[in-house]
């Protein structure tokens, strides 16, 4: 195990010392914490963490190593990874390598041996903040580095992470055709649609509404993705047109936020986001509480939407933020959490069924 020192320099000037794993060097990102106790491999490959440095609150990570089956996307999008301890001797029948080896392949910088609870509490109290992981001596030119950290911004997130090419996936005996606008989606979203007898055409974020409609979809899926939702002006326009066209549409996570923005709503940055596998979400219609997996830093402001346009279908039991919307002006519904969530509970996969039902009903 590497004994090389590494540091985390936070935007507020605090420095945490630990040791290096993954690659050496320097990386700046927005520091966020995730409370999941399993699913570190899914976290490492989650596109929604683009531009961010993820902190695992659970101290022991990499216990099962990394395998090639459980990736959420083809590569690691996050900037850095912080754990208390990573496992040099993973034990699992599917294990192919340690997470250290995996991060080295993926060129991800890591920091271990820090008090991740202390770090989590700093973020909880101060809100998410930028930080820098570096194996260089952080004290030598701290002011200079700090300036870099403080000016860092996540930009072009969707553009970078989302797919660049249109691609069609077909299944036998397909019932529906779904156009999935990939905003930086996890692999499991596509899997869930294919499993429900949908042919899926994955299109890039900048595909126009017209182009999408030309594909003659039974429904449109707006995926999850990273970054500040309001940054995606172009997509918001596209969504607006799709809503007007009354195509059945299902949005999750970033997709949920973009539909709200397209309908005149607003989004707000949460103090430290919802990241982990234990977020309780209540469904308005049934009163049923789902334990959901989430990974987002922004939320839709409920009051910003005209009640005639959309109604809240789900809300977070802990902080009462909006977790789902049903629209009245079009066959559209969206949720803030991951209904598929291989990195956590699967209680809400039924939402995909609901999407299929909606397509059946609206079917031409």
């Amino acid at each position, binding site marked *: 195990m590497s004994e090389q020192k590494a540091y985390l320099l936070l935007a507020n000037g605090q420095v945490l010392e630990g040791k290096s794993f993954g690659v050496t060097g320097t990386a700046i990102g927005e520091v966020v914490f995730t409370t999941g*106790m399993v699913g570190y491999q899914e976290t490492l490959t989650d596109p929604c963490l683009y531009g961010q440095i993820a902190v695992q609150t*659970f101290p022991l990570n990499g216990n099962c190593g990394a395998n090639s089956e459980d990736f959420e996307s083809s590569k690691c999008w996050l900037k850095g990874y912080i754990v*208390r301890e990573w496992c040099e001797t993973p*034990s699992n029948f599917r294990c192919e390598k340690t997470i250290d080896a995996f991060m080295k392949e993926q060129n991800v910088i890591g920091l271990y041996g820090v008090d991740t609870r202390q770090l*989590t509490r700093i973020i909880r109290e101060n809100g998410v903040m930028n930080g820098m992981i570096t194996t260089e001596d952080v004290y030598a030119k701290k002011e200079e580095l700090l300036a870099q950290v403080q000016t860092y911004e996540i930009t072009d997130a969707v553009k970078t992470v989302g797919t660049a090419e249109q691609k069609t996936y077909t299944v036998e005996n397909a019932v529906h055709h779904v156009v999935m606008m990939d905003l930086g989606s996890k692999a499991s979203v596509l899997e869930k649609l294919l499993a429900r007898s949908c042919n899926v055409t994955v299109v890039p974020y900048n595909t126009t509404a017209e182009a999408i409609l030309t594909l003659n979809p039974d429904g449109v899926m707006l995926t999850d993705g990273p970054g500040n939702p309001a940054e995606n002006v172009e997509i918001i326009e596209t969504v607006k047109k799709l809503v007007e066209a009354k195509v059945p549409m299902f949005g999750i996570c970033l997709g949920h936020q973009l539909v709200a923005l397209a309908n005149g709503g607003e989004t707000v940055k949460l103090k430290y986001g919802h990241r982990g596998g234990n977020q309780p979400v209540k469904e308005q219609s049934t009163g049923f*509480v789902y334990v959901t997996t989430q990974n987002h830093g922004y939320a839709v402001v409920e009051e910003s939407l005209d009640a005639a346009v959309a109604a809240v279908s789900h809300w977070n039991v802990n902080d009462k933020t909006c977790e789902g919307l049903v629209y009245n002006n079009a066959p559209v519904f969206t949720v803030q959490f991951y209904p598929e969530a291989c990195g956590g509970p699967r209680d809400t996969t039924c939402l995909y069924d609901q999407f299929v039902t909606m397509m059946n009903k609206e079917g031409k």
Partner: protein
Amino acid sequence: MPLRSDIKKVLVIGSGPIVIGQAAEFDYAGTQACRALKEEGLEVILVNSNPATIMTDKAMADKIYIEPLNLDVVKRIIEIEKPDSVLSTLGGQTGLTLSMQLAKEGFLDTHGIKLLGANPETIDKAEDRQIFKDTMLSIGEPCIPSKVVESVKDALEYAEKIQYPVIVRPAFTLGGSGGGIAYNAAELHEIAENGLRLSPITQVLIEKNISGWKEIEFEVIRDSKANSITVCSMENVDPVGVHTGDSIVVAPAVTLSSKEYNMLRNAALNIVQALGVEGGCNCQFALHPTSLEYAVIEVNPRVSRSSALASKATGYPIAKVATKIAIGYTLDEIVNAVTGNTYACFEPAIDYLVVKFPRWPFDKFVYANRTLGTQMKATGEVMAIGTSFEQAMMKAVRSIELKLDSFNLPKLQMLSDTDVVRLLKRCDDERIFVVYEALKRDIEIGKIHNITKIDNWFLSKMQNLVKMECTLLKKELTPELYMQAKKMGFLDKTIQRLSGEDISKKQYASYKMVDTCAAEFKAETPYFYSTFDEENEAAQFLEEHKTDKKKILVFGSGPIRIGQGIEFDYCSVHCVWALKEEGYEAIIANNNPETVSTDFDTSDRLYFDPLTPEDVDSILETEKPWGAIVQFGGQTAIGLTKHLEAAGVNILGTSAKSIDEAEDRESFDALLAKCDIPRPEGKTVFQLSDALAAARELQYPVLLRPSYVLGGQNMIIAYSDADVEEYMNIILANGIENPVLIDKYMMGIEVEVDAICDGTDYLIPGIMEHIERAGIHSGDSISVYPAQRLTEANKKTIIEYTGRLAKALHVIGLVNIQYVIYNGEVYVIEVNPRSSRTVPYISKVTSVPMVDLATRIMLGATLKSLGYETGVHPISDYVAVKVPVFSFEKLHSVDTMLGPEMKSTGEVLGIAKTFDEALYKGLVAAGYKIKHEGGVLISVRDKDKEEVLPIAQSLENMGFQLYGTKGTAAYLTGHGLHAEAVNKISEGGFTVLDLLESGKVDYVISTSTKGRQPAREGVKIRRKAVERSIACLTAIDTAKVLVDCISLNRNIQDVELVDITQI
């Protein structure tokens, strides 16, 4: 849905006496339940036969019945109290089974009573093997190939089909009693036969053996709206094959990938949904180590030992939430009491690792079969919280109080490598130590895994500890190495011993909070564990919550073991309550997850950590308490006294010097001489030769015991040189620091007194007398309050001596004194300047709140200022009889003959206006069947023959058929009785064992000069009686009172039921 409006008055059924498989965790659950109900303004009626519990305390319920937990009694209580509901799922298997019987008989319906917590359909789906299997099949959850059988023949047939080895699991038994693994037809025959007998519905499950698979548990909660969450996952370090109660367990599960974890989590949620559980539920799975194949092992739709562990491991109060669900609330309506601002409807996230380590009784039962299997043998457990597995394991091993500070077991060091590998194959309580020894000898992890099936993850973590030990031995102790060792859980004293270097700069531990949410939300509840990071959340908490209150640290009693049970938790909790009432801040340090004292809202702050001097030092460093209390935490806390005093801590109550004075033989003798109080003559020795000389001088029989012991550990009565030799050899084998005490054994009436003293005055709430004469440990004796057979002169002397001793010892608080009355004279046997086993029950029957008074006195009050006179408290209108309860059916090869070494695991109480009735209730509550016809086997040693004669006579007069081994039968026949002689085992033919098997015998009276060793005749008879569930009396005095009780011809329908709040 909020509180149901049709619930106003709830009957809560407790779990009864502490036995292996059903321990303090149900007092914890029951207490939380009662508090949750009272919080809602509901009237609570409680029934539990166990007087040592906190739930049977007057503060916990409106009406409290300490009565036998049987169907007739519960029905009568229902008729008297007319509750509208019965809560079934908080009283362990005992409470659940009683509730189901009430429901199935239609009794609840007839009386218009609602069953809360579980319905009979749910219970049947979980507990009836076949219905369970069908239910699992219907929802596509895989089960292990198995079949329910009701005969040995069917068992054998099915086993042939699925092939040996097979597991036998009896239906509806506690802690898997009567189960086991059979490797061939002969073994199956024996185990199945036993299991069928023990099962109340004569059913056992024959199951394919999947030993070696991973064992994973989930604690799930579901409400009436079908909201369901998993509170915690747990992984057994010992794979399938070892009962989860005997496994080292970690939380959360650590060797599962997200895929495996979610597969099992989903399965757990599916199961709970299919069963329709409303409340807590435990789901156990077996997971194939190299595939995604799994099987459901077992489901418990009630709170359990695992749920207590999960509660303490996460901070999530399962019993409380389950209770609120039972009375109508849903998860999203119940606030998370730890954070205060989130809801119960979420899954706790934890940012540490928890290790549970079992505490077995094998240090006391040296001849017990230590093999671990499907039948639980541990009496208790400890929990350790750490930021790494290594740290938590090191904390756990020093918390179990086997005098270990690492996984080095000295006796293994002299073995050859071959022997170590051979030992790895034996799955017993010492296996983890053998694993450590194997790793130290560079035996490959792969090889260890192949033998033990323990996951490589755990093995490589254990190897990290080995590596650290080697590094400390070889390398210079740099500050970096020191900190690494500290983070791995090494104590300074261990580091010093290994490195041979002094620690220049001692590092105290820092503390982190257990908050259910991995710091995502700010928590309100100060529940801490130690680690070695810079940030100290406990210190921050103290800074943010400054008060003028003085802080007092109360030490708990650690794991439940024979001799140190739940009674000390009762005392610790009462002490905390009294401190809070007096305006102090009460802080608890303890490591037992089953207890009320470690509930996050019992004290002002909770430190869940080991109770070694060094661990305590760090708590002192952070808290800097004004004072500390050691009197209520049994020997665990008393053992800290010297250290605390040396550290300059203000020990409240009786001083360290006085405590030492009572325990050190020489100063104790001097004290008695000064007080002019006689004690049985005695000597102290270190060597065998001296022991023999002393014994001969005192004249046999003599009592041998090491000084500084609890529960009569290694204490025996020796009748000959051979006895002295045998026991000295056992004691000396472990090395002794303190001398062995040899006393003249005086066979008289034993009397016990608990007193509260303020330095000047003393209060004796009551004098207790033991049914069995001295020589049987007080914890194993039937104890009667008030004493029935003492002369006024004796009583006066006892009161007088107690006062003298209390004053001479400067007792401030509680003291427990044991006396023997021999030839009319009163002698002191033992003085314990601390709380005792009898404090809870005497407090309850005399209404003297002993711990409360003692605590206030430690803070400066006097008995007078509290309104009490000096001397003995007026005698209660009620007689209370405490009857011990044993767990012999769980502990194979243990001799059941009572002696000076304690063997009972729990106790029950009978309370009535008369002694006869109280005794009757006590015996019934303890599980004795009061029969009026049948057979009695008598086999007693020569010196008991004369005394057994009138007992036999009385039995014969009542119509019992007497049987006897030849000597006893001849003696009885010679005195005009009709006793059928039966062959001894060694004589062959139709022997006593065959007689016991025949079902003709209902009671056994068996005493022998020689005991303990499993091969001996007497031991075999007694073990057979245990296996056949035949009441076996090993003391003439016990036999006599039982026979008296039978002759009274009482019926449980006739006894008066007593609400103790009215005493």
